[in-house]
């Protein structure tokens, strides 16, 4: 999953999400287990968007 963030004319953010073919094939594996925690107590750097591009339109 990729994120591309832009800033709209009125200052609001908008994020485009795009995906590889990873969603197509179900799997029994837990290869994606252990995603970063969400809470502030356990916040991790991954909370920041990846592949972010700021652009005013």
């Amino acid at each position, binding site marked *: *999953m990729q*994120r591309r963030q*832009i800033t*709209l004319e*009125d200052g*609001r*953010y*908008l*994020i*485009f*999400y*795009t*995906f590889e*073919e990873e*969603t*197509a*094939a*179900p*799997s*029994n*594996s*837990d*290869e*994606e*287990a*252990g*995603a*970063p*925690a*969400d*809470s*502030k*107590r356990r*916040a991790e750097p*991954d*909370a*920041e*968007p990846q592949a972010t591009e700021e652009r005013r*339109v």
Partner: protein
Amino acid sequence: MGEWVATATHRQTRTFLPPADFCPLCPTKPGGFPTEIPEPTYDIVAFENRFPSLQPEPPAPAVEATELYPVRPGVGVCEVLVYTPIHNSTLAGEPVEQIHKLVQVWTDRFRALSAHEFVEYVFIFENKGEAIGVTLHHPHGQIYAYPFIPPRVERELTQSRAHKDATGRCLLCDIVADETADGRRVVAKNDSFAAYIPFFARYPYEVHIASTRHLQALTDMSGAEQRDLAAILKSVIAAYDKLFDLSFPYMMVLHQRPVDGGVYDYYHFHVEFYPPLRTATKLKYLAGSESGAGMFINDTLAEEKAAELRAHVRPVVWQAGGAGKATTGEATGEEAGGD
């Protein structure tokens, strides 16, 4: 009364049921009118609501607080999630792969919004259908990031904590185990989730989807569990549409742990659907008892309504990589649709 009410008078002027040619959630076509999304296509999009009830930097309250009436700025975040560029689609009509993408976006937004210091609860939901009061038909959901734990979740937390203290067990783990063992109220299930009409359903076709593993939030899920969540969501909402052969209106809400830094290991992730229809043409109204006393009157039996829905559950087919793990309507050893 111990509950906050958001006053957002600017929302009175928000877009209301525009014609399909002027949908603000469609892509902006070359030479066309500018929509909220300034590109000719997209997959899934998240953006800050133009008409938010809560904002990261809200204006000062329009009225002053008194000792009797406390007032606080409406701090928070309101996002819109657009599921697909296809205006006439619905989440039920989307392939399971697209719902899987949505689950991943939900997870990402939950994680990102949780990082705000002022956010204590991230609430993901969808209002679908004019019967619910939607103002835009384009398939979309919303996220409200609240600066407090909302009262319905607070009630669930209290009950979950009390059950844990009394029994040493998780309340939802016990409910899922009981429902899957009994089977009469189960609508669908797969390796990671069970969908059922709860014993205490308030709406005739109220369905809850709970994880079979004890987890508290989307961010706790494995990749396989994310896919299973997508599959069982597809099963339930597709069955809704088949039930009366119409695009079934509903409210869908995700209940996760708060993100205020507290410990909520006694809580259990689940999704709840509140459909307003009790027949193909009749609505379940929230009338005097429901609105004034908080006491719901349900004119139906959960066991009967679950059987109706279960009859419309079909295996979920992934387009590539084989059939995958089918979500089934099996509940009591009968064939799906055997009721």
